Each structure stands twice: as C-alpha cells, then as structure tokens.
C-alpha cells in the first residue's frame, strides 16, 4: 500500500512538473496570430460556463496601460466554444474605453488596437457572446 502511494505521489509530482514546464499550445497559437509587428506582453486564459443571466462581462482583470503605447488585444476562442470571446475595457472611472463587440449588429472584432494616451490602471472584462459557454485566450501585445 505504502509503495502504491509512493508511486502515485511520484506520478503526480512528475505530472505537476511537466504541467509547470509546458506552455499551452492554444495560447502559443494565439500569440503567433497577433501579427509580425506585435510583441507579446500578457495573456488571460478564460474558461466560462453558460451565464445564468446576461449582465456584465464576467471575467475581470486589471492591467496597467501606458501613454504613448499602441496595444493590440487579440481574442481567440477554442473550437468547442459556443460563443466568441469578447472584450470590453473600462478606465478607473468605469468609463467604457473600447468594446470588441457590437451588441446591435452582433459583429465581433478578432482584435482591437488601442492607442493609449492616458497612463493608468484599466479594467479588462472578457466574456463569450450572449453569455455562452466557452474557453479562450485574450493576448495583449504592443505594436508599432
């Protein structure tokens, strides 16, 4: 029994190490699709179930954005997602700065370039269209 537990522990430990070392191929693929001139900064990995009701975008994160920088926000949805990954950014006063989704026409943009002229901490909100279930990644890069 003790030997069995030791083997299980070793397998879990090895598995953990391997998980720690490998970078997600889906994220890598999304990073590679941001364009030749884009330089990777961060990514947000999002996995959401179907929303009970559609209110605010559900995945929230903060990020500092700096003046005189052009950022590219790229959204990639996994194939089995029911909706498309969308992004909305608000400033510290909760004012909407950009949205990659036009609710009226249903159009989603796969990427948004943001020419930042006001340094500060911004709220990034991600979700899937119509509060659908899905998984995806939002990549933030800098472009010239």
């Amino acid at each position, binding site marked *: 029994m003790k030997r069995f537990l030791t083997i299980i522990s070793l397998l879990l430990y090895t598995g953990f190490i391997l998980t720690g070392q490998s970078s997600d191929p889906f994220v890598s693929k999304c990073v590679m699709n941001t364009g030749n001139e884009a330089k990777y900064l961060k990514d947000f990995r999002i996995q959401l179930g179907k929303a009970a009701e559609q209110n605010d975008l559900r995945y929230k994160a903060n990020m500092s954005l700096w003046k005189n920088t052009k950022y590219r926000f790229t959204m990639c949805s996994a194939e089995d997602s029911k909706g498309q990954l969308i992004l909305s950014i608000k400033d510290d006063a909760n004012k909407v*700065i950009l949205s990659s989704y036009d609710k009226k026409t249903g159009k989603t943009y796969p990427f948004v370039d943001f020419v930042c002229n006001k340094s500060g901490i911004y709220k990034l909100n991600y979700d899937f269209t119509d509060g659908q279930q899905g998984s995806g990644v939002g990549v933030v890069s800098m472009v010239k």
Partner: protein
Amino acid sequence: MAMKGNITLLTILFILCFSCRNSSTKETEFVFPEADSIPQSEAEKLSPEAIEDISRNISSPVEIANLLQMLEVPFSSQYLASSIDANKENTTFDKALKLGILGADLGYLNMYEKTGSSLDLLSSIRKLAEDIRVGQFFDFEMIKRLSQNRSSLDSLLYISIDSYEQIDSYLRTNGRGQLSALMIIGVWIEGQYLATQVVDKYPDKILSDRIGEQKIILNDLLLLITPFCNNSPEFSSLCKDLYALKDNYRDIRIIYTQGEPVASEKEGGLVITQTETSIVEMSEAQLKGLIEITSEIRNRLILND
C-alpha cells in the same frame, strides 16, 4: 457590405460617446492615499485576486525596453546587474529579489535581441529559481533555443514572461507570497533603474513622463510588501527604501484631461485612439531626485553580501 461596416462603426462610436456623457469635463489628478504609510491591517486584508491584479499591473520591463527602442536609444550592457553572482546569494530574500532583477534584465536583452549575453544571464536565473524551488516553471532549454533563433522574438517573450508569471502564481498560492512580492519588486526596481539611467544620459520627455507615471504603481507595490515589512531586517530595509521613493514622488503631479475615443476599422480589426490624456508635471530637480534614489536603492540591492 461597406454600409454595414459604417453602421457598426457608428454604433460603436455612439456607445463610446454615450458612456462618456456623464463624465466630468474637468481635469482630475492622481494622488497618493492620505496616510504616509499603509496600515498593516489594510495590506493584510487584500484578497488573493487583488494581489494577483497588483502583480499583473506592474509595468513590464519589456514595455520599458520597447519604449527605449522606439526612442532609438542604443543598447548598453552597463545598465545590467552584472555584479549579481547567483552562487553567492545566501538567503531566500536575496534569491527571490535578484530573480526579479535578472528577469527585468532578461526582458531588456530579449527586446534588443542580445542573445549571447542572455545565455549567461539564463544560467544565473536558473540557479536562483532552482534554489527557491521554482526551477520547474522555467523552460531553460526552450528559452535558450529561442534566444538563438532571431526570428522568434514573440515566442521568446511569451515563454520568458509566462515562466515568470507561473513562478509568481505558484509562490502566491503556496504560502510563499513574500517571495512573489520580492520578485515583483525586483522586476520593477530594475525596470525603473533602466529607465532612469537612460533618461539621465538621453533626456527625453516621453521617457521622463513614464518614470513620473510610476507613481501610479508605487502605492500598489507598497500594498504588496507591507504585510512582510516586519518579517526580517532585510524586509524592513526594503520597505524603508520604497517609502523613501514614495516621498520623492509625493509632489510629482499626474493630471488627466478628458476626451472622447475615436474609432476606425483596419484590416478586419477595430482601432481605438484615446484622446483623453495624462500629463506629468515634474521638475528637473524632481527627476534628478528620482534618478539618484533609484540608483542608490538598486545598487545597494545588487551587492553580493
């Protein structure tokens, strides 16, 4: 088709404008919270999510290096913390802090594609990471391979930054938040050192503004480190340094002006240009003060005991 595109664009502009209707047209200003020091209890109340947000907010050294490239500032190895000897670091405090400092240097080298120097640096990073038992998150062989391949800068940045984020997350979720805080502070101090050294040699308004704007981040850094300020004399000393830096920032003003975002479409994507601005009001003497204190703190931190 073009008509549909125009309607979409108009709708987005309408939403953006509508969202701005209630915003004030007055100028606003960023100020530090009133108390001189952050109460220990306030810092300890921070949720894991808030701490994660703070660690994500720290200005990336890659962004500083990108700005330097944009300003056509030539690369210089003089700015690197070459005196750090990973074999001579004895405490976990020093190892975590220097892991952060070298991470910032790695970002600078990667952006300038100085792959030869980055291989030496990688060995030091590997040693420090293994010493604090987070070496498993750093894919050294992959980073080494990508460093030698000049066409894969984006992959190199992704793997390097992702490795540091995994280390940070692992430390925070495994009861070693103090090491995560040290690593993040190390990254930030080195980025700040790089920017201040460059501006001293190549004065530039955009760069000095970026240095002044770090006021926005400094309070978050203090929130991150405050719960550990009484952990050891080393922590107390680092906290004292950061509070001294905060004093230097106190009278530097960041003013915000209002404006409406402008939207257009390009190559299937949306382009938003912000017309709101942040303006830094900082005198020559204030900048000089920041250059001096940053250099003093950073040079003391990289000394080998």
